[in-house]
């Protein structure tokens, strides 16, 4: 091998190394993006494969081998290599000519010293190699530092919402049963319907009909709770009234009032006895009540001291029951007011403006709107999000005119000693405005149609 051929080969090997760095750099950049993407996918979608995905990093070695294999051999690009070297040594094309037609006479005109040839060899500065890899490698490293999504160890049960709704109903039923609010027959009936609902919820997701059934069952139990609370409150009120005559006053009125209160107390106690709630009373009180309740008539002791003591014991018991029912009510609503969503304290809403604390709607009628589940309360202050602020808002905040919130049935017309004409069931709220066959999911609405809507409804049905 002639001297210049040896240097051509050395130059070619440097060129080959440069080609390898270029090839490998390009492939490695693509590989880093693929690797980073795979790590991200695994961390986000398949966290269980996280340690294994790192094995992909070992693919760098075959990648390097493939890049070296695919790099043009020194012989493949020899013509270009010689041309570069020719220019490098300022041979004016002589090296290219000698590479194709060897001629000893002209070979001697080429540089003779090793140093001169050595200086022509290109230095390897893998700047481009690293520059092309900066971004892909950062991406791959960054992907490795992305937090691993926690793998779910337990399987997801189907129809979770239906199951939870059934469980909540069952829990409420248990609480009511423990509080001796439900009669046995009624309890059995509710139990069967809840079990049937739970069974159906396991198989199919909740439909709007089943949601209505859940809601109806819940309202039915809450209605029983309300009825019991009203009976206890009625008894408490009567006992409080019966304890007052000790202060003196109008005797005739006291007798009439006493009789009315005695009747109220009697009916309330009968209501409580029917559901077995009196079983929670102390043995002494039970004995006293048995003595007083003979032949279905409540007879209070004639002696003032005994009478006062019996009423005090009864009031204490009723207070406890009232407290218990309030707590139960609060628990059934997750400790939140059903009217305004404010926390409950002893069953009472802490919000002084809560509609549930208002009487007759005189005050509430002065507030604008009544809001809705999707729009928020009409009288709530406007909130400004990221999209705009108060100064740049297109629509300015205005106070709405008073809305029609009042429900005449909720108004208190007055207080009489006689039994209210309205049935508590009818005044318990809109939930009782319909009858529900929970087992079948069907229901009947009995809501009254307002006069201004009647013509519309009539035309609709006439067109059928």
């Amino acid at each position, binding site marked *: 091998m002639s001297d210049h051929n040896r240097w051509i080969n050395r130059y070619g090997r*440097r*060129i080959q*190394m*440069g*080609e390898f*760095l*270029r090839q490998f*750099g390009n492939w490695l950049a693509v590989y880093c993006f693929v690797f980073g993407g795979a790590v991200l996918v695994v961390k986000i979608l398949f966290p269980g494969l996280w340690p294994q995905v790192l094995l992909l990093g070992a693919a760098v070695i075959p990648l390097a081998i493939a890049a070296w294999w695919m790099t043009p051999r020194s012989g493949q*690009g020899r*013509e*270009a290599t*010689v*041309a*570069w070297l*020719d*220019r*490098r040594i300022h*041979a*004016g*094309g*002589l090296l*290219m*000519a*000698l*590479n*194709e*037609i060897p*001629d000893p*006479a*002209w070979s001697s*005109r080429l540089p003779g010293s090793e140093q001169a040839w050595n200086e022509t060899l*290109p*230095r*390897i*500065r*893998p*700047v*481009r*190699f690293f520059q092309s890899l900066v971004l892909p490698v950062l991406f791959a490293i960054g992907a490795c530092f992305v937090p691993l999504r926690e793998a779910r160890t337990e399987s997801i049960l189907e129809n979770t919402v239906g199951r939870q709704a059934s469980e909540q109903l069952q829990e409420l039923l248990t609480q009511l049963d423990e509080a001796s609010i439900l009669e046995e027959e009624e309890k059995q009936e509710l139990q069967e319907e809840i079990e049937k609902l739970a069974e159906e919820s396991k198989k199919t997701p909740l439909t709007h009909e089943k949601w209505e059934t859940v809601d109806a069952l819940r309202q039915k139990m809450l209605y029983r709770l309300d009825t019991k609370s009203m009976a206890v409150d009625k008894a408490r009120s009567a006992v409080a009234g019966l304890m007052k005559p000790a202060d003196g006053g109008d005797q005739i009125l006291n007798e009439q009032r006493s009789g009315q209160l005695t009747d109220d107390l009697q009916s309330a106690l009968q209501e409580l006895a029917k559901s077995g709630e009196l079983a929670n009373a102390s043995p002494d009180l039970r004995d006293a009540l048995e003595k007083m309740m003979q032949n279905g008539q409540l007879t209070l002791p004639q002696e003032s001291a005994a009478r006062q003591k019996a009423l005090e014991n009864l009031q204490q018991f009723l207070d406890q029951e009232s407290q218990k029912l309030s707590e139960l009510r609060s628990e059934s609503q997750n400790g939140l007011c059903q009217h305004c969503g404010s926390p409950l304290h002893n069953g009472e809403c802490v919000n002084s403006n809560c509609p549930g604390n208002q009487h007759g709607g005189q005050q509430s009628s002065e507030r604008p709107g009544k809001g809705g589940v999707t729009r928020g309360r009409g009288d709530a202050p406007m909130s400004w999000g990221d999209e705009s602020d108060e100064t740049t808002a297109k629509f300015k905040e205005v106070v709405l005119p008073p809305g029609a919130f009042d429900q005449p049935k909720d108004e208190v017309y007055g207080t009489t000693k006689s039994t209210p004409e309205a049935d508590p069931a009818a005044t318990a709220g809109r939930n009782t405005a319909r009858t529900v066959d929970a087992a079948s999911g069907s229901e009947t609405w009995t809501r009254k149609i307002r006069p201004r809507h009647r013509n519309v409804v009539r035309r609709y049905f006439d067109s059928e």
Partner: protein
Amino acid sequence: MNNPNESEIQSSVAAPTEADEGAGRLLAPEEVEEGHDAISQLLAGLNSAILGQSDLLEMVVICLLSRGHLLLEGLPGLGKTELVKSLSSLLGLEFRRLQFTPDLLPSDIVGAPILEEQHGARRLVFHPGPIFANLVLADEINRATPKTQSALLEAMQEHRVTVLGETHALPGPFFVLATQNPIELEGTYPLPEAQLDRFTFKLNVEHVSSDTLEQIIRTRKNGEPPMLEQIWTAARLERLFGLAEQVYLPSAVANYIARLVNATHPESEASPEQIRQFVKFGASPRAAIALSGTSRAAALLAGKPNVGFDDVRRVAYGVLGHRLILDYSARLEGWTTARIIDCLLESIPEVDREFPGDLQQ
């Protein structure tokens, strides 16, 4: 054409044979030195006649050695005609001068058959025109009509003329050295592209420096050049032609020439943006042939047995300049062919392969 050194040269260096050319050998250093010395001798003679135009003279000699025709363009009084006359004197070739005018006819150039009576019979006898010479100076060629200009087409390409169906070979060597004036264009006929393509070189004769002017007026009485003696013979010229053709063209350089010419076409993928925008038609294959031939001559002039990239770059302006047909937009934006060729040489790499970026030369 008598030359005292002719026998000496022939005895010292054997003329290249066809067998040598087929073997693809490099010229021997002695042969290259011989050619270089002879060319230097010719250049020295030309430089003594034409002052301050050494680059132009080298390009003229390169064109001559590649057996090419030359078109000189320049203002009057720059020595174009004198250059051609000096060349003929130094080469000892038969020289004819043709002053092209609008009423010049093709027969005035190539000759015409004349009815003569010979041996009692009348017959048409062809009387050769002034083109039957070794060195033809076509002065102000663009003043003749296209019909007359086209009379040179066959002569320049095939070294022969055909009159009335009879073909007459021109003496060898045959060169056409034409001149044209870039101003006073009224009443001129621009050379057609086919005619231009037959000129190997088109060179612009530039103004000389003040030092040269001073030297001219100081040494030349009435501007007359010194008497020149013949330094080459026809045989020596043929010998130099052979040497120039034997200069080796490496495949990488040939590839560079091919890519250069190909890139002059605006529809080529490799052409730079300026060519796509301003060039209407690119160079023909004849340009590539001319590039290789003149590059060989340039290499021999440089004393090399092979062509290098620099030799191609050197002759590219003369070879490609008149072969690129520019678009009207180029004139509007002030682009010249020289500027286009600058862009071409800058954008086309000598090696058709990208040097690895991670290597530092």
